[in-house]
């Protein structure tokens, strides 16, 4: 690598079979792509991938900066790649995806020495694919899933409920069919018949021992095995908002790859991969997906655009926003499914990563993985402007969950181009710079804690602990006092509104402004999610008035958690948001007649009817 030469930005690519394209990121090294050594990164599965996405991006960038060509990618039915978990022979498709990725990296960069790096199930798939070929220079296995059966048991506990009758498994928002579970149940890396590569680095997890059975088996297969226990695994797979890049693991892996690189002779040639777009058929409609970059301030935003082929002037255009730190696939990969479904109905959908989240780099002076950044409204505006400019849609909609819901609401309030915002489970309505996720979602936390205390009053155990002075009186007292203060604040604000006194951070004023302009705000809450109560408290009487006038809607979904991890609750969420999105603007989306006529017709402002 030439000193001081910047590493090119990662390039999004679609590759693999026509109609079943895989999505990936090609990280070319700084010398213009003439790498002689490559690395294919194999993701973990499901929520582990969501948590580790940022860390693996960092690892890929660091490897490219060290002169290694890298391809990280989504398996068939995962991430941005085609298909879904219901397809048959999923385990074979995943292993085939690894082969496709290896071949693509070799053809894209002309190199012939490829190593594989896998995390959790990714390490397993990498080993299974490598066992079937002889051109893998080395395998890095981070916290590998050695036994498929043991891993399925972990997922079962994670799901929290007994397995389904058909053998399928739903865990942390991701599904495995009964057939896939059966296939995984038979996977055991200790029974490989040949070593996946001559050189194997196993990075053990730092929170639990994984045993030495697999390294022993590999040594018996004449592999050169090295085991390390660098810190960082547990922090890497923490919830996405709190996950940390495991720098010790990244540095250690790069040192090992440099050593392997010296040990094998290069054979380089140069070729190119195709454009970052793909075509598939969804519900009988030809749908095109394209990976794209948008300029926003001093940075670029990554997004995936899904549209019917040859689309011009669609009725609906939708921007989907990050749910917390989850990248552009959305919570439980829901955004991918909805984007394809809605494109088949004629809509244009952009799944956006705001700057510093997912695959969008942070602003020059900003940090990454900040879920409530001040630049979010600017980022959303850039996405809306792009859709307006390129497609001239009749309606522009925003969809977000958690922090994405917050950004959707703020963008809708501030941007007259927005037809509606679908705001799912916001946890705050006024985020201030300097607040932190741990301590400053106080309004929501206070509501949850006091509600829990209220429920506890009816349990004998609570009173027993009270009598034995085993309750945390300090925390309880603080929460109750804050709740009382909040109630006073909200009453005071209601009074100020009656007297037409302007106050700061007035949610009712924001909702009124959006309604006056004809922008529809549609709230959807999992029943019991604290945002619902917050909306009623902070919005005051305006919420009921606007709801009665059908200029604002609130839908509640029973039995759901904050991110709709269970498929059954997700289906009900989809039904609600499709009703809200595809209901003509002149009709109330909640199916009720307005209690009194709106002050100004929404359809008159927007001018676009279904």
């Amino acid at each position, binding site marked *: 690598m030439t000193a001081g030469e910047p590493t090119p930005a990662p390039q999004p690519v679609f590759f693999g079979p026509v109609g079943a394209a895989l999505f990936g990121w090609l990280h070319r090294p700084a010398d213009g792509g003439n790498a002689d050594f490559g690395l294919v990164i194999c993701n973990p599965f499901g929520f582990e991938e969501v948590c580790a996405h940022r860390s693996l991006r960092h690892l890929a960038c660091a490897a490219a900066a060290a002169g290694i060509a890298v391809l990280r990618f989504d398996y068939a039915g995962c991430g941005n790649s085609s298909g879904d978990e219901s397809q048959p022979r999923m385990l074979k498709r995943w292993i085939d995806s690894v082969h496709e990725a290896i071949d693509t990296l070799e053809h894209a960069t002309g190199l012939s020495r490829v190593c594989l790096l896998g995390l959790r199930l990714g390490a397993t798939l990498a080993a299974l694919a490598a066992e079937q070929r002889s051109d893998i220079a080395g395998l890095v296995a981070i916290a590998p899933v050695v036994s498929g059966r043991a891993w399925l*048991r*972990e997922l*079962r*506990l*994670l799901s*929290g*409920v*007994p*397995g389904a009758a058909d053998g399928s498994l739903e865990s*942390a928002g991701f599904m495995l069919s009964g057939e896939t579970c059966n296939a995984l149940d038979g996977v055991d890396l200790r029974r490989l018949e040949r070593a996946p590569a001559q050189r194997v680095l196993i990075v053990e997890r730092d*929170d*639990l*021992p994984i045993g030495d059975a697999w390294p022993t088996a590999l040594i018996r297969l004449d592999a050169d095995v090295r085991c390390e226990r660098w810190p960082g695994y547990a922090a890497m*797979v*923490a919830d996405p908002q709190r996950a940390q890049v495991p720098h010790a693991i990244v540095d250690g892996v790069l040192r090992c790859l440099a050593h392997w690189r010296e040990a094998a002779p290069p054979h380089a040639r140069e070729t190119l991969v195709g454009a970052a777009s793909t075509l598939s058929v969804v519900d009988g409609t030809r749908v095109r997906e394209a990976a794209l970059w948008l300029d926003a301030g001093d940075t670029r935003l990554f997004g995936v655009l899904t549209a019917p082929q040859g689309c011009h002037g669609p009725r609906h255009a939708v921007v989907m926003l990050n749910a917390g730190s989850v990248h552009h696939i959305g919570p439980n990969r829901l955004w991918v499914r909805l984007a394809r479904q809605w494109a088949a109905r004629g809509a244009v959908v952009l799944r956006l990563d705001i700057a510093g989240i997912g695959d969008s780099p942070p602003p020059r002076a900003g940090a990454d993985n900040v879920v409530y950044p001040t630049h979010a409204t600017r980022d959303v505006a850039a996405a809306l402007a792009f859709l307006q400019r390129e497609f001239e849609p009749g309606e522009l909609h925003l969809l977000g969950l958690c922090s994405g819901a917050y950004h959707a609401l703020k963008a809708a309030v501030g941007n007259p181009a927005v037809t509606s915002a679908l705001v799912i489970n916001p946890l705050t309505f006024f985020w201030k710079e300097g607040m932190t996720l741990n301590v400053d979602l106080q309004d929501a936390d206070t509501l949850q804690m006091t509600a*829990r205390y209220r429920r506890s009053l009816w349990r004998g*155990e609570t009173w027993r*602990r009270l009598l034995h002075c*085993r309750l945390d009186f300090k925390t309880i007292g603080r929460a109750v006092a804050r709740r009382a203060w909040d109630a006073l604040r909200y009453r005071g604000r209601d009074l100020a509104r009656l007297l037409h006194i302007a106050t700061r951070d007035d949610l009712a004023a924001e909702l009124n402004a959006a309604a006056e302009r004809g922008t529809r705000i549609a709230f959807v809450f999992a029943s019991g999610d604290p945002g619902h109560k917050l909306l009623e408290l902070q919005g005051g009487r305006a919420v009921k008035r606007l709801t009665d006038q059908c200029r604002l809607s609130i839908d509640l979904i029973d039995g759901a958690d904050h991110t709709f991890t269970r498929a059954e609750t997700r289906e009900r969420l989809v039904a609600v948001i499709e009703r809200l999105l595809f209901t003509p603007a002149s009709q109330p989306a909640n199916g009720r007649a307005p209690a009194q006529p709106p002050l100004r017709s929404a359809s008159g402002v927007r001018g676009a009817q279904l």
Partner: protein
Amino acid sequence: MNDAPSPEALVRSVLLEHGRLTRDALTLDADADLYQAGMNSHASVNVMLALEAAFAVEFPDHMLTRSVFRSIQSIGDAVSLLSTTSSVQ
């Protein structure tokens, strides 16, 4: 004299190391709700793996539920049942 920790003490030490509790696992009520005490689903998986290693047992699929891992008491009951079953076998 037997210095081996009691099963409950072993459960508590596993929770201390892997449960990510916001309260002290060593003094927590045996029937206190571990999920309300800060243990999330991911931590419960690590607790399960560590318990299996500590007690040399394997939780069968039907016991991989939140109710089994809800309290020190319920974990102790499950481990006791599994230990008895495995010693009989």
